[in-house]
């Protein structure tokens, strides 16, 4: 029908990809209109360039800096600051931010789909139902070190100090390690050097059994406190 704004019609009536695409198209047209109105055609070109670079960077950061981001590192703010220092135009930075957020969302969506698929696959192999945890299979430190998340763990859940301030993030309720006793991985904030502690300027990782005692992440056997904290390295 001429003039009908509906480009996609979902025959099931339940809504689907077509509706989502239509919405996305409308949002994009509105964004283009706003940016062009504010900055002209060149501004829109800049926006699109920034968007592409932001998208790629958002995807890469979400994979490479998964751990620091889980600990609260604001990688987007740092990236935007870099763009300002590099004298990028306002529409470029606006596009960069939108692209970066889209990249982050895409990585999160892929992780969820993979986790769901894996849980479904495992559920068909054994008698025990496997919960869909939403937790990643591993997190990656800034230096590329991967820290496995115990199988079946859920999270993230906050780790707090006695005042209630968040000091870390945990995935709990899993069953990792050779003996299945690795219940939890904690990703903890930096701590200063004090006493016999050398200090953990980038934070540390600790694996625990269900009662909270430190364990070896590979064997699952209990470990002394002195061997329970794995420093996160900066990668520089």
């Amino acid at each position, binding site marked *: 029908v001429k003039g009908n704004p509906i480009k996609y019609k979902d025959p099931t009536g339940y809504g689907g990809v077509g509706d989502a695409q239509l919405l996305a198209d409308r949002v994009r047209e509105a964004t283009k209109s706003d940016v062009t109105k504010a900055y002209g055609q060149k501004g829109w070109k800049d926006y699109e360039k920034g968007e592409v670079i932001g998208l790629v960077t958002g995807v890469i950061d979400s994979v490479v800096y998964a751990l620091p981001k889980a600990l609260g590192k604001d990688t987007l703010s740092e990236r935007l600051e870099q763009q300002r220092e590099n004298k990028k135009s306002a529409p470029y930075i606006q596009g960069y931010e939108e692209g970066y957020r889209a990249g982050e969302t895409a990585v999160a969506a892929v992780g969820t789909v993979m986790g769901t698929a894996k849980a479904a696959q495992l559920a068909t192999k054994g008698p025990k139902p496997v919960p869909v945890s939403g937790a990643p299979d591993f997190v990656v430190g800034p230096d590329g070190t991967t820290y496995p998340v115990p199988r079946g763990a859920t999270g993230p859940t906050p780790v707090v100090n*006695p005042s209630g301030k968040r000091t870390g993030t945990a995935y709990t309720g899993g069953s990792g390690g050779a003996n299945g006793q690795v219940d939890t991985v904690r990703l903890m904030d930096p701590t200063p050097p004090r006493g016999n502690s050398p200090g953990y300027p980038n934070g540390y990782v600790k694996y625990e059994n269900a009662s909270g005692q430190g364990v070896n992440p590979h064997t699952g056997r209990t470990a002394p406190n002195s061997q329970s904290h794995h420093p996160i390295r900066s990668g520089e």
Partner: protein
Amino acid sequence: MNKLNDWLLDNSVKGIEFLEDQIHINFVDGSNLYLYNPVAISRNDSIVGCKVLQVILSNESLKILFETGLELKMSLKDKDYRGPEAFSFRSSNGEIIVL
């Protein structure tokens, strides 16, 4: 606010383990406390079965007072840290409190 107090008040000790470089106290509600810094106990009595009367947290120490009058005191002075944590606590509902 002292979240540890919220969990330990009126809770009773089910068991205590002296491990290699930490002390593990298990409570009847299923929560667990691991102490990593040096600990002193006011007198040589067992705390098993004792109910917690008060938990006092300061910059210098963590004190747990039991209804029997027994006091467990762990240093929080910088020099007494053996690792990044002084204690960790896992509540019966899975809340994790670390200092």
